[in-house]
């Protein structure tokens, strides 16, 4: 992505600060979650969550179904804003600024924090338009820049060779695995610094899954990545940090090496060993 950034600067059309460079590495912590409590109406789901995500690291969130992993992920880009009756207390600091602050521009926040969903969810548009979508809604009109960016992002998502003849075909004509990589290309097109992924490989075949895991390993250079996963082996292999949620509480959060070999909490150990 670095050359994309350079490209953009040379073009000097970066009105919306689409590319905030990744070079500013002095801050180690990208996201810090402080005393986060989250409610669906009266249902107190997430309880006193405290943790941080380091810059350019991969973190996996594990936990049984219904423990609040997806809900937690959605608090990090304020997708919970759209859930009627939901309520949040506490802070989520992104680069030191609370994203729930009144002064925060949600559109800019989401540009900076990309999200990939459990099911591939391409828009009812062409392959090209899917990747260009983020650029368009963030006000970029330069056709040549968009075209170059789309190609780069598709290459980066390992999809370009497969779709270069289908750029102007409907995205639904791609296979499930291709669609998911398209969604990844779409998410990185606006050059975010954080990528949230909610079980991105849950419905994919092993080959597509392997491709996407390779991508994630590569992406670490450019993004802070937070993945929700059900696959413990996968998590151990690709992530630097792992967190274990149970009934809306964060039971354990540590470097993946420690997490998987010497879990501090009995419940974490049970969860890991039951699944292995």
């Amino acid at each position: 992505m670095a050359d994309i950034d350079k490209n953009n600067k040379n073009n000097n059309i970066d009105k919306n600060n689409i590319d905030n460079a990744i070079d500013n590495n002095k801050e180690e912590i990208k996201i810090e979650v402080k005393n986060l409590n989250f409610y669906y109406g009266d249902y107190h789901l997430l309880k006193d969550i405290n943790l941080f995500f380091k810059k350019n690291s991969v973190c996996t969130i594990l936990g049984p179904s219904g423990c609040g992993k997806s809900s937690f992920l959605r608090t990090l880009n304020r997708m919970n804003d759209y859930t009627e009756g939901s309520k949040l207390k506490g802070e989520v600091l992104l680069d030191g600024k609370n994203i729930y602050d009144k002064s925060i521009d949600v559109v800019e926040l989401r540009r900076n924090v990309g999200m990939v969903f459990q099911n591939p969810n391409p828009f009812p548009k062409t392959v090209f338009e899917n990747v260009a979508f983020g650029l368009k809604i963030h006000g970029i009109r330069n056709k040549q820049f968009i075209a170059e960016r789309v190609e780069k992002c598709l290459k980066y998502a390992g999809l370009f060779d497969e779709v270069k003849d289908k750029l102007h075909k409907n995205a639904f004509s791609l296979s499930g695995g291709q669609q998911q990589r398209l969604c990844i290309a779409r998410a990185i097109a606006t050059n975010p610094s954080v990528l949230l992924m909610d079980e991105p490989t849950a419905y994919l075949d092993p080959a597509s899954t392997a491709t996407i895991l390779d991508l994630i390993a590569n992406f670490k250079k450019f993004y802070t990545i937070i993945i929700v996963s059900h696959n413990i082996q996968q998590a151990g292999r690709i992530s630097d940090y792992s967190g274990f949620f149970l009934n809306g509480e964060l039971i354990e959060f540590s470097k993946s090496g420690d997490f998987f070999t010497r879990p501090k909490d009995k419940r974490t150990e049970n969860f890991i060993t039951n699944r292995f």
Partner: protein
Amino acid sequence: MAKLNQKLKLKLKYKDDLFKFILSIFIFGIILIFITVVAIIIYYSYPAVSRFGIAFLWTKEWNPPKEIFGAATFIAGTFMVTIIALIFAIPLSLGIGIFLEEYCPKFLKGFFTIIIEILAGIPSVIFGVWGVLTIVPWLRRDIEPFFEAHFSNIPFLKVTENIGYGILAASIVVAFMVVPIIASITKDALAAVPKITKDGALAMGATRLDVIKDVSLPFSYRGIYGGIILGFGRAVGETIAVVLLIGNQAIIPKSIFGVGYTISAMLANTFTFAVISPIYASSEVALALILLLISLIVNIIGRNVLQKVIGGKLSRTQFGGG
């Protein structure tokens, strides 16, 4: 015991077959009715069709004493009312559908939806009476004088007789009858857009309006299109409300304020007198044939569109997985 079971099974089997048989009779009955309708209309319109030929479609005169009959004025009136009604109804219905599905607070949505369903079920004569009591005086008092003062040199907007009745009055009321149909189908089509796809756009920083424009409408346009076709079908055949409002004169309206006639209004008003002369009656049935053909064609188009929507949904779920 086994024997008893056997008997019971036989009995059930017999019942099942009887049920099937009765159902088949019903189905046959429906097909028979359809064929009879088409056949009778064709049969009785034949004398007029063979006498006037295809020129029946563009002959403007309708003169029973001279036995000259042509459908042009009625076809013109029918299409004018239908098209103007749809011009009013489509934006209004899309607006209502989009509002209900994308913006309306939950507690109001149910209430509005019920209102729309009730509106769709109100007998059309009531709409007609309402139009005579409200739309006609309003056009006569406020709208027509205004247009006369400001737009009298624009041909299609010229006010000839300031009476309130005419194409516009009929179109407005027909529009109100069509809005519930298109609006509720629009709402349903938008509701079928997968939440995860909308979330995908929101998660990229799209505004609600971006989502509607770039995700929801492209996803559901076929369904909405189908709704418009159904609305067209309703508008083109609407009778009683039009009889009460259009002015009922067999002329080709030169302005939206002019009076006119539609095929259905003409039939409702005059078919009972037409029996006095065979060719008169046959010409009226030929009008019915034209209306029948229009509605069949529109229905077939609409049906194909709806089928494609369902097909599209199926193929999408294949990709989507769980």
